[in-house]
């Protein structure tokens, strides 16, 4: 269905959903501030954790402090953008299956996955992302490294790729809700991996492990790969081939699962 729609119409639908999301957000102010404190706490503690290690050990796997700080900042940008734009929406798949609301969405003349991707927005995520940018800039200053436009373009591209990877992974997990009653534990697992995003890639003992945690459980995507663009864009940029691939697989899995849902009786 997606391929037959006109681009203009889909653009309109997406913007309209984002507009709904914006209007909905304004009524959630109280939990907003609490959430902000939580986000800041997480940021602070990550920094405390790593700086405590650096205070005693001096380096991690040969990586100096500014490099790890850059990872922390990058991780926050990616986490922030994902939380801001997509997190609340993808979750609706599993709740929709349970409540039966999915049947409602199936009567709309719009691609169901589109409805599950765009809609609610969470402004806190933008704040986290902004702070992440601040941390990254500070880290660059500490490292006395001035990235050129070429570096920045690749970095931004890989950031977008990382968010896409996370979204595709989230859809994989939510798609399991068609077959399993309770996917809470998997969702919690995915969220937990954010804490490990800032671990430098040097800690992985071999390229096998690096591959596992890039392709299978994409932890390295959440900071290391995009940050790599700031060091060595020519090598890092090849990774951009992965997100579209994963997105296609994820969509295929979703469509197959949806078909199964419709055949098995919902």
């Amino acid at each position: 269905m997606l391929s037959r729609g006109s681009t203009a119409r889909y653009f309109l639908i997406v913007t309209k959903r984002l507009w709904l999301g914006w209007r909905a957000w304004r009524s959630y102010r109280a939990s907003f501030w609490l959430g902000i404190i939580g986000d800041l706490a997480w940021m602070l503690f990550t920094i405390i954790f790593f700086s405590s290690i650096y205070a005693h050990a001096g380096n991690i796997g040969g990586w100096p402090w500014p490099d790890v700080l850059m990872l922390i900042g990058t991780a926050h940008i990616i986490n922030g953008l994902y939380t801001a734009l997509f997190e609340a929406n993808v979750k609706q798949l599993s709740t929709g299956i349970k409540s039966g609301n999915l049947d409602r969405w199936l009567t709309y003349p719009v691609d169901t996955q589109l409805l599950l991707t765009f809609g609610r927005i969470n402004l806190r995520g933008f704040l986290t992302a902004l702070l992440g940018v601040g941390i990254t800039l500070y880290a660059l200053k500490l490292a006395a490294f001035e990235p050129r436009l070429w570096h920045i373009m690749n970095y931004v591209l890989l950031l977008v790729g990382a968010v896409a990877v996370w979204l595709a992974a989230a859809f994989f997990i939510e798609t399991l809700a068609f077959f399993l009653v309770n996917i809470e534990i998997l969702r919690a697992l995915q969220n937990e991996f954010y804490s490990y995003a800032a671990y430098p890639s040097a800690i992985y003992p071999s390229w096998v492990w690096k591959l596992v945690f890039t392709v299978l459980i994409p932890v390295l995507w959440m900071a290391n790969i995009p940050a790599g663009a700031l060091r060595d864009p020519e090598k890092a940029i090849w990774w951009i081939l992965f997100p579209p691939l994963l997105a296609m697989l994820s969509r295929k899995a979703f469509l197959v699962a949806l078909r199964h849902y419709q055949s098995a009786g919902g």
Partner: protein
Amino acid sequence: MNSIKVINLTKIYKRPVRSRAGVLKDLFRRGTEEVVGVDSISFSIEAGEFVGYIGLNGAGKTTTMKMLAGILHPTSGEVQVLGYIPWRRERDFLKRIGFVMGQKRQLWWDLPAADVFEFLKVVYELDDASYRRTLGEMTELLRASDLLNVPVRNLSLGERAKVELIAALLHDPEIVFLDEPTLGLDVLAQRALRSFFAEYNRRYGKTMLLTTHTLSDVESLCQRVIVIHQGKILRDGSLSGLLSEYGQQRVLHVTLEQNGILLERRIEVDSSQTGKVLQELADTGRIVEFREEKLSLEDIIARMLGEK
């Protein structure tokens, strides 16, 4: 011209079965059983008809409706709605059908309905003129003009049902599926919705299919009823025919005292005979209390099954 055509439609589910014994066994394997939801049913509905699709819970009403709307794939058989095959979910098909699901909400909790209507306008590609006209007419029919700009969470259950209804019909569909639309609502709200459905069908000539397990829903609305039981159609005919066969029956619940013992009796009797039966009972003992009820759907279906 048939709006809806159903031929030998069948739907079989697979349900997982959990054994209560072997606690450790459950860890590794689980059996599945086949459940027949709908068993080779056939019927057709013409444009403008208002058909009641009635049956007990689990009879297969919602399953049928979901197949007509394209939500479920049939296991076998043929379905055609407005000439489309529903489960293909073609965009033009989905724009021409409407689905009112009793308990399921599509409006956003914290937003006024009007906001989501704007979104639906884009989804269904409605032009300004038709959008405003339909919205105006629906709002007027339901007397909901002051409900549109209030956040949905601030509305009462009945008010919410009204705006959800407008949302479901905003795109002026030709066929409307109503799946237990009055479930959970209080009597006043139910009446308001029912009179709306009647007017909507009458004024616009929409084809409407209503599923319910309460007879009172169909009594005021449908000229024709299809009775479904355990996936099979028991009866497909006029409502008046059904009522004339069973509508005259009454159920008497009598508490009788005989020789100091209290007995409870349940008697099915034609409405013209209630007086006579009560008289006969009064001759055998003392009537402590009695209650007269119309036949429920369960009673009617039990009778139909008994007659087969």
